[in-house]
């Protein structure tokens, strides 16, 4: 087994008396995307702040690429990429100037900034000042900045928050490409679809505690309801039948219902990640 790119053991953080992260532990392997799923204020961004060296944990320990995060090692910082929730770009500079500047901080002599901008669909606006960009373009710019050093570990804090579906899909595609390249990705989001689509595993975090961590499929299997809902034409009306999938007779029963009339729709009743989150924590992902 390869060494975990991110290894977190029982770390805690408090803002004054308020304990924001209460001893969480997890690992992320190279090439893996771990989705941190939780509502606002659950402790997702604070965890990323600790792991990227912005704040020091109050307790526990964590390693990035085998190095303790408290060492504040520039060589390790050179191997991570961060996409912040706030759009902290240099607005008076162009996209290319922004990327070239950050590349120089990583010691990259001839950065291929245009290629990176092309990946996020901004190559044709590379020379325009970022202050002229739309919200979606700035978000894509944030993602491209996180990629500038071809990082081994990527921290993405709400990378598609508030974006239109087309831009979100484009950003998700680039995140998958980075994971495929071998980068370990820690992704925080409160978007269940994003977490489901992108994550190899998801961690549910609520009130500073990880309440569950597994693959989306396993979580759905473990906590979801396995049944099928079938709508059939019934003379001039419509009737609806639900068939449970966990009994030995499920196959026969399903066959019988389907054969009993003209089938209009068949839907699985698989639970969404949000359903499971609500089931486990008693609160929704938004708010």
């Amino acid at each position, binding site marked *: 087994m390869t060494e975990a790119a991110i290894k977190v053991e029982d770390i805690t953080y408090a803002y004054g008396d308020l304990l924001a992260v209460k001893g969480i532990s997890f690992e992320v392997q190279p090439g893996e995307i771990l989705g941190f799923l939780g509502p606002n204020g659950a402790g997702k961004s604070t965890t990323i702040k600790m792991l990227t060296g912005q704040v020091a944990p109050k307790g526990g320990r964590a390693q990035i690429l085998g190095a303790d995060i408290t060492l504040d090692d520039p060589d390790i910082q050179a191997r991570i990429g961060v996409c912040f929730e*706030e759009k902290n*770009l240099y607005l008076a500079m162009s996209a290319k100037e922004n990327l070239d500047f950050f590349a120089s901080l990583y010691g990259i002599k001839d950065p291929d900034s245009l290629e990176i901008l092309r990946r996020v669909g901004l190559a044709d606006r590379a020379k325009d000042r970022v202050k002229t960009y739309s919200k979606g373009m700035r978000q894509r710019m944030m993602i491209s900045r996180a990629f500038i050093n071809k990082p081994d570990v990527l921290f993405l804090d709400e990378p598609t928050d508030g974006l239109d579906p087309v831009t979100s899909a484009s950003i998700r595609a680039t995140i998958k490409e980075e994971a495929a390249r071998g980068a370990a990705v820690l992704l925080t989001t409160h978007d269940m679809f994003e977490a489901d689509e992108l994550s190899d595993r998801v961690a549910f975090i609520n009130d500073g505690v990880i309440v569950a961590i597994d693959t989306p499929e396993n979580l759905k299997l473990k906590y979801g309801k396995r049944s099928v809902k079938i709508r059939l034409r019934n003379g001039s009306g419509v009737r609806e039948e639900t068939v449970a999938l966990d009994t030995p007779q499920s196959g026969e029963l399903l066959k019988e219902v389907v054969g009993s009339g003209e089938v209009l729709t068949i839907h699985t009743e698989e639970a969404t990640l949000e359903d499971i989150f609500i089931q486990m924590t008693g609160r929704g992902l938004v708010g």
Partner: protein
Amino acid sequence: MSRTVSRAAIVSAIVKKDLVEFSRDTLYLFLSILGLVLFITFFWIAPSTVNETLTLGVHQTGMNALFDQFQEGADASEGLKLVQFASEEELKKVVAGDLEYWESKDGAQTFLRDKAAGDEKPKDAKKVDVAIGIGFPAGFLEKTAAKERTTVTVYSDAGVPSEIQGAMTSFVREIAYTIAGDAIPVTEPAQENIILGTDRAGDQISIREKMRPMLALFVLMVEVLSMASLVSSEVMNRTVTAVLVSPARAGDFLMAKTIYGTMLAMSQAMIVLIAIGAFTTTNWWLLLLTMLVGSVMFTGVAMIVGAAGKDFLGTLFYGVLFLVPLMIPAFAILLPGTASAWIRFLPTYGMTQVLTGVTAYGLGWADVWQNLLAATAWVVVIYLAGLFTLKRKVESL
């Protein structure tokens, strides 16, 4: 991918980025250029000479012999010029500014010009300012000799210092005593004037000369606001956070800001000092050193202001709060006599003294080292305070 990047390369990258941002900040770029142009223009249109002569207007009748003695005495001494008026009304109007007093260039002819009545300017003549005058009444000589009470009127423009007005009153009293035959009840010392400190009599510097330190400080002041705005923007937009999750450390960021601020302030101060002719072959290194000290001092101020200000108005507020006290020593040189002794304790006092001494009086290292040392001590205090304030702000984000 692992790379090693030197601290110098990181600092250099941040400085370059700051310069790009400065070049894109239209407001501060405009203010900087406007400041340079205006400061240099103000300097060259300011009076370059000092008129140390006091012109005293006199109206008298029956005192020609005495007045001729006064005239001879005035001609023999520097700093006093007597002009005579035919009537007290003329004298009064000239002092009040209702009439203008002109003299031919050789001084042989005099003219009174009523500007309001449309009188033309006399040809080949120069205007003489008569701000104070004495009107002796008819029969003054005889009545005073007979120890009779008379009234002598001293006319004074509002702008004449009260000390000069008092001196004129004493002058009249002394004449009266002399004519009356009474001795003045004091013994005049062998040396008439005892000057405490450096005697600048006859060595007064012009307004233009006095403006040099003030202009240098003005340039630094504009750059404080410019750099503070940049720092504030980095903090408020949290771009500094993005920098600090890269291999760059807080120390690199602070070092870059120090270099950027000092470089920007010093280069512009140099442009102004060169344009106003402050440099000579002997003082250039002393001026460079002084401006380096000043630039670092103001960079420290900019760090504090930038960390405190949350937006343009906030930066302006804190900027003015810090900069006004720092400008006082320069204004004190421009308006001597207005400042109290406590200005010696202001951080920019030493710097302005060095600038004035070096550029106006040609002083050298031996004369100014103490002031320069005091300025350097202040730089250490202010710069460290700036570093501490900004570091705390950056780390608290």
